[in-house]
């Protein structure tokens, strides 16, 4: 996992709510056995017509918006646990997703891949949509050290929450595995003493 650096970028607005992971990456693209290349099929059914031609008014296809930050309606990433959704967003170039809340499994998957989910209030999210849609060239700064989100041209700064352990992982570019692999002895000790383990095995 790459270290998470401070991001200054334009924002891509996608105001739909409850965007499920089937929309982010449809199941027919999950047949791959590697992690690479999912970005080209990100939002495939919204982005392309059935014959493969481009849906011109979809936000990822126009010239109006671009950037490393995706702004999306509430309950982003609900549904299937497919980590391919996080891989597809990252592969496309997104490093931050801003929403008023995220589905749990998507949130974990994003954090495990260096994609930062930033939770803001519903009111602030609405304000951001208005602002970004009115000024597509507006830049947003996401500083993980400070845990702040700054609308640069407006001088508006908001802080956001992230569990301290996950923050350290992102800043150091480490996933949970680094920590877990060091616990071998403790796990063996637990298995010896756990009453339940003895009952079941």
């Amino acid at each position, binding site marked *: 996992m790459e270290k998470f650096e401070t991001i200054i970028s334009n924002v891509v607005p996608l105001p739909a709510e409850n965007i499920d992971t089937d929309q982010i990456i449809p*199941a027919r693209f999950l047949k791959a056995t590697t992690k690479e290349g999912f970005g080209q099929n990100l939002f495939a059914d919204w982005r392309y017509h059935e014959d493969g031609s481009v849906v011109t008014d979809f936000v990822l296809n126009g010239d109006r918006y671009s950037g490393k930050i995706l702004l999306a309606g509430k309950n982003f990433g609900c549904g299937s646990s497919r980590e391919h959704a996080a891989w597809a967003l990252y592969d496309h170039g997104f490093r931050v997703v801003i929403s008023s809340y995220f589905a749990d*499994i998507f949130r974990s998957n994003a954090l495990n891949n260096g994609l930062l989910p930033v939770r803001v209030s519903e009111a602030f999210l609405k304000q951001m949509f208005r602002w970004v849609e009115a000024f597509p060239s507006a830049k947003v700064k996401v500083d993980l050290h400070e845990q702040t989100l700054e609308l640069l041209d407006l001088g508006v700064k908001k802080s956001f929450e992230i569990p301290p352990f996950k923050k350290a992982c992102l800043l150091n570019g480490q996933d949970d595995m680094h920590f877990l692999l060091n616990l071998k002895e*403790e*796990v063996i000790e637990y298995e010896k003493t756990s009453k339940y383990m003895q009952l*079941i095995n």
Partner: protein
Amino acid sequence: MSRTLFDKIWDAHVIRTIEDGPSVLYIDKHLVHEVTSPQAFAGLEKRGIGVARVKNIMATVDHNVPTINQHLPIKDLISRKQVETMETNCKKFGIELYGLGHLYQGIVHVIAPELGITLPGMTLVCGDSHTSTHGAFGTISFGIGTSEVEQVLATQCLLQEKPKQIKIEINGKTSNGVSAKDVILYVISELGTGGATGAFVEFCGSTIRQMSMEERMTVCNMSIEMGARGGLIAPDEITFAYCRNKPFAPKGKKWHAALEYWKTLFTDADATFDKNFSFNAEAVAPMITYGTNPGMGININERIPNHNETSFERSLEYMNFSKGDKLKGKKVNWVFIGSCTNSRIEDLRIVADFVKGKKKAEWVNALIVPGSRGVLMQAQAEGIDQILLEAGFVLREPGCSACLAMNDDKIPAGDYCVSTSNRNFEGRQGPGARTLLASPLMAAAAAVYGEITDVREFLN
């Protein structure tokens, strides 16, 4: 100190808690399938490490398999490669695989319970969101991503923040024609798709107590559809009777010791939850969804509500429905009975019972896909296969099938499908396909009459 059912299982599995951070949670059972595991196995190889506990793993193929001619090589070459990768990985890492043709093969969430691999008090994970199903046995079960699959393979542990806890109490007797699926669709329609985000839900109350294990699995299965990490139900005599004598359940002395422990797994009377909801099951009627998330459900006699909101309107546009529409009487041309929500033997019995001596409507394609080889064989032993064939249904071999448009079973663009599965997302059953979620009984009635009906009108 008073503890909830969740607390008791959680506490018994925490190896250590990091200060200001997550806990290290020991995982008793890890279910692995072909779609969300190849990158995890590749990760292990890249790190040069093996699988920590092969005995804690159950592996099968279900999502990306055909449901016809499973004895022949898979026609779709990319799917074949994924299934072969699963076989190679299991061989390489010493994991037993219930592959195609195996007596135990089927949908992960159907086979683990029926084999006695899922048992009360466990922690259980799988790279699939519907792992919540296993909570029906009084377990902490939840879906994980592929990075976490890799972590569990390597260490048998996960780092988890302790979630919030919600209690959903459902009381009362359901009326004739109303099933567990209607109850859970009703609850989701009340709480919304994000209503339980960040939480585990304990289902309790007299309605839940009266349910069979199959019905409880249907309820817990769909707890993810209101955003919950998982659902769970305290084990009771119904649970113990179900588990007893299952192939992998403990036997003899061990069974009695386990039973004694399982009987301690309930929420203490004065334990508290972060949120409480209660519902009356007597108010529940057969449900049907009209939109593109599982929270968009109404009872069969209601009209589509009148919300002025962009996402809602977009959803109706996709479904080609209008505000104020009634769904009853709308023509459908597909019925899918299957998926980890409703493909167990009890579901097949309910369908067979209803369609016996009837014929499906001429214009309907009625597909019924058992959740496991075991369910299929049981159905054959009971003559259910003959009843379904005579009614014009197509009975397939086990797999996830048309639930997720990944394998060959897809619903064509623009067509309506009454489906017993769990998700009605845009394109879920095929690009452009329109899914209406319902119970097996409502689906069977839709197949026979060729339109959405109130099944109660045809019951005596």
